[in-house]
C-alpha cells in the first residue's frame, strides 16, 4: 500500500515534469521566415467606459515564450546586448521604470510588454519596430516577465556568471502585475 502511494506520488512528479517539458526545452532554431509579427489587441487597464471590460484578443503566442527556458534566456542576453540596462538597470529602474516590481504603467502581460518594446511609449521608451526582430522582442518580453517572477520558476533564467546584484529571476518570488503606476520608482518599494 505504501509503495502504491509512493508510485502515485512519483507518477505525479513525472507528470509535473512532463507538463510543458517538451515546449520548455525546445530550441527553435529556424524561426518562420514569413511575417511573424502578430496583432495583439490588449488593453492597458481593466477600466472601461462601457458596461463590459475592454475587449482583449491575443494570439496566444506569449504562452510559448513564457514557458520556454531557452527563449527567456535568449531574452536575458538580448536585454543586456541591446542596452535595456541603460534605462532600466538590471530591472531596478533608472531613467526608465523598474521592471522587477508589480507596477505596470502600460500593462504587465507579455503582449503589453511586446507592444511597449515594439511601439515605444511616451516619455522616453523608443520604438524598436524594425530594429529588433519580432522573435527577439517576444524573447525579451518573456524575460521581462520573469524579472518580476511572473514566469514559472523552473523556466525563468538562472544566475549569470557575473557579479550578481540580486537573486536570479528563477528565484524571484512572483509579484503579479498591477496595472498603472508612476514613472518614478514607487517610494513604498
Amino acid at each position: 500500500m505504501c509503495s502504491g502511494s509512493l508510485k502515485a506520488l512519483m507518477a505525479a512528479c513525472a507528470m509535473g515534469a512532463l507538463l510543458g517539458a517538451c515546449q520548455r526545452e525546445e530550441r527553435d532554431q529556424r524561426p518562420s521566415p514569413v511575417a511573424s509579427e502578430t496583432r495583439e489587441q490588449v488593453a492597458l487597464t481593466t477600466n472601461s467606459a462601457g458596461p463590459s471590460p475592454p475587449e482583449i484578443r491575443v494570439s496566444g503566442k506569449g504562452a510559448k515564450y513564457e514557458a520556454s527556458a531557452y527563449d527567456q534566456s535568449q531574452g536575458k542576453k538580448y536585454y543586456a546586448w541591446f542596452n535595456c540596462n541603460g534605462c532600466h538597470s538590471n530591472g531596478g529602474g533608472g531613467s526608465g521604470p523598474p521592471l522587477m516590481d508589480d507596477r505596470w504603467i502600460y500593462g504587465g502581460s507579455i503582449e503589453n510588454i511586446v507592444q511597449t518594446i515594439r511601439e515605444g511609449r511616451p516619455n522616453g521608451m523608443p520604438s524598436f519596430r524594425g530594429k529588433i526582430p519580432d522573435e527577439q522582442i517576444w524573447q525579451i518580453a518573456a524575460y521581462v516577465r520573469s524579472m518580476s517572477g511572473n514566469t514559472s520558476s523552473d523556466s525563468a533564467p538562472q544566475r549569470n556568471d557575473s557579479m550578481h546584484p540580486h537573486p536570479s529571476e528563477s528565484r524571484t518570488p512572483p509579484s503579479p502585475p498591477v496595472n498603472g503606476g508612476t514613472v518614478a520608482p514607487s517610494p513604498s518599494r
Partner: protein
Amino acid sequence: MTDVAIRASEKDLRDTDLAAEDLHDRLSRAWGAKSGLIGWLSDVDHKAVGRRYIFTAFVFLALAGSAAALMRLQLARPESQLIGPDLYNQLFTMHGTTMMFLFAVPVMQAFAVYLAPLMVGTRNIAFPRLTLFSYYVYVLGGLMIWVAFLMNIGPDVGWFAYTPLSGPQFSPGKRSDIWAQMITFTEVSSLAVAVSVIVTVFKQRAPGMTLDRIPLLVWAMLVTSFLIMFAMPAVMLASTMLILDRLVGTHFFNYAEGGDTLLWQHLFWFFGHPEVYIIFLPGTGFVSQIVGTFSRRPVFGYLPLVLALVATGFLSFGLWVHHMFATGLPQLGASFFTASSMLIAVPSGLQIFCWIATLWGSRPVLATPMLFVLGFLFIFVLGGMTGVMVASVPIDLQVHDTYFVVAHFHYVLIGGAVFPLLGAVYYWFPKITGRLMSERLGKWNFWTAFIGFNVAFFGMHILGLMGMPRRVYTYQPDLGWGPLNMVSTAGALLLAASFGLFFINALVSMRSGAPAGNNPWGAGTLEWATPSPPPVYNFARYPIVRHREPLWAEGDELPVAHGLMVSQRELLITTLTEARPDLREGTPDGSIWPFIAALAVAVAFICSIFWAIAAVWGSALVGLTLIGWFWPKSVTEDVT
C-alpha cells in the same frame, strides 16, 4: 552469545548430518525468494540481482550504441542534414554519459555482484539489501535520463559537462540538471555496491582462501571497488556544486564571485581518470581467468599481476591533469603529469607480458572467449600506445579534443573493457544460464566486431591529425574529411551488426543452447564447483580452499565445512587475511523496502530538480523508508 530460546529446536537444525537431497530442499526453502511480483522485487539473491543488473546494463549499451550509430550516420557525409546540432549534441552527450555511467561501470559491478560471492565461495553478497537498493537506484536514474532525452530535455553539454557551458547561464532549462542528478543516482548506486563487494571479499571468503589464493578477477574487482570509493565522491561533489549553482544560485564556478571555471575540471577529472581504470581493471580480471583456463595452467606471475592492479589503482589518481594540458596550467606541473601518465604503462605492460607468458606454448583452443581475449590484446595494446602519445604534453596539445583522442579511448575502452567483457559473457554464460552460447555465432560475432571496430576507429587517428575536432555535428566538404568518415561509419555499422549477433546469440542460447554441466571449460576456480545455474544458496556446504585453483588441485573431491543452520540464512564470516572461520552470521531475507526506498530516493532527486525544497521533504521521505527498512520485522531477524 547465542540465544537460549531458539536453541535445540527444529530451527536450530544444522547441515552436519543431512543427506544431500534433504539439505538441498531445506536450504532452498531458507534461501529462496518469495513468489509473486512483490517477491520478485524483493529478491536479494546476489545472482538474481546480478543477472538483472547485467541485463539492464546491456540494455543501456544498446541504447548508447544506437545513439552512436545515429551520430556516425550524420557524420558519414560532410554538411549532412540528417541530424541538427541540437539533437546531435544531446546524442553525443547521451552516448558518453550512458556508456560511462550506465553501462561500463555498472556492468563491471554487475559481474562483481554475480561472480564475486561465487568465486570467493560464499552464499550471498555482504549487504544484499543495499545491493538490491543500489540496483533500483541505478535503474531509476537511467530511466530518468532516457525519458528526459525522449522528452527533448536530454543533456546536451557532453558527458564531461564543463562549466560554464553546463552552468546556469549557458544551459537554460533542465537539461544539465537532469545530467547532474543522474550522476547522483548512479554514484550512490556504484558506491554502495563497491562497499558491498569490498566487504564480501574481505570478510566472506571461504575458509582457507588467504590473500594469495584470491582469484585474479576478484582482486581486480576489489581494486576497482576501492577506486570507485575514492574517485566517485569527486564527481558527486562536482555535480552537487553544479546543481547548486543552477538551482539556488551558489557561485562555485562563477569566476566573477570568487569561484573558478577550472575547479570543475579538476574535480571532474580527479574522478574521470580513475574512471577509465574502474572500467579497465575488471577487464584485465576477465582476461586473467580466461587465459588461465584456456592455457590449462595457473596464470604466470600471480604476484606481479596483483601488484600491477594495485599500482595501477594508486597511479590512476595521479594523472587527472593530463586531460587539462591545454588549459594553460604551469608547465612544470604539466610535465609531472606526463611522467606519471607514462609510468602507468609499466604495470599495464607487465600484465600483458604475464598473459603472453602464460599462453606461451600452450596452443589454446580458440573458443570464442579466447578469441575475444586475443582481440583484446591486439586492440588494447594499440590503444595503450596512443595513450603514451597523448600523455606527452606537446603531442597532446595537437591531438587533444580531436578524433585522435576519440580513436585512442575507444581502442582502450572497447579493446580493454568491452572485448574482455564479451569474452566474459561467453565464458560465464553457461554458469549463469546453464547453457553454452553458440560457438558458430560466437565466431561470427567476434570477427565482425574485430573488423568492424578497427574499420570504424583506426581512421579516426588520421582524421584527428587532419584537424577534425571532437563533438562537431558536421564539417565542411572542402576539408577533405569525408572519405575517412564514410569508412568509419561503415565500420561502425558492422560493429553494430556484431552486437546484434551477440544479442541474438545470447537470447537464442538462453533457451536452446547446449546444456553446460558444472564446469564446461574445465576451469579451476570455485564458481565452477556449483551446478549451472547455481542453486539459490550457491554452495550446499562451504568449500575449504587449500590452493589458488581449488578444482584443479583437489581433483573430484572438494573438502568442505559443515555445521551451519539450514532453517535460516547464515553466512560464514572469516578473518581478513587468513580467512579463518570466525562467525556464523545471519544475512537478510528478501525485502520490498529497498525497492520502496529507491523509489523515495528517485522522487526526492527528480522533484528537487524542479523545486529545490524537495531536497528537504524528499530526504525526510527517504528517512522514513529507511526506518521501515531497518526496523526488525520478526524475532529471527534479531539473531540474523
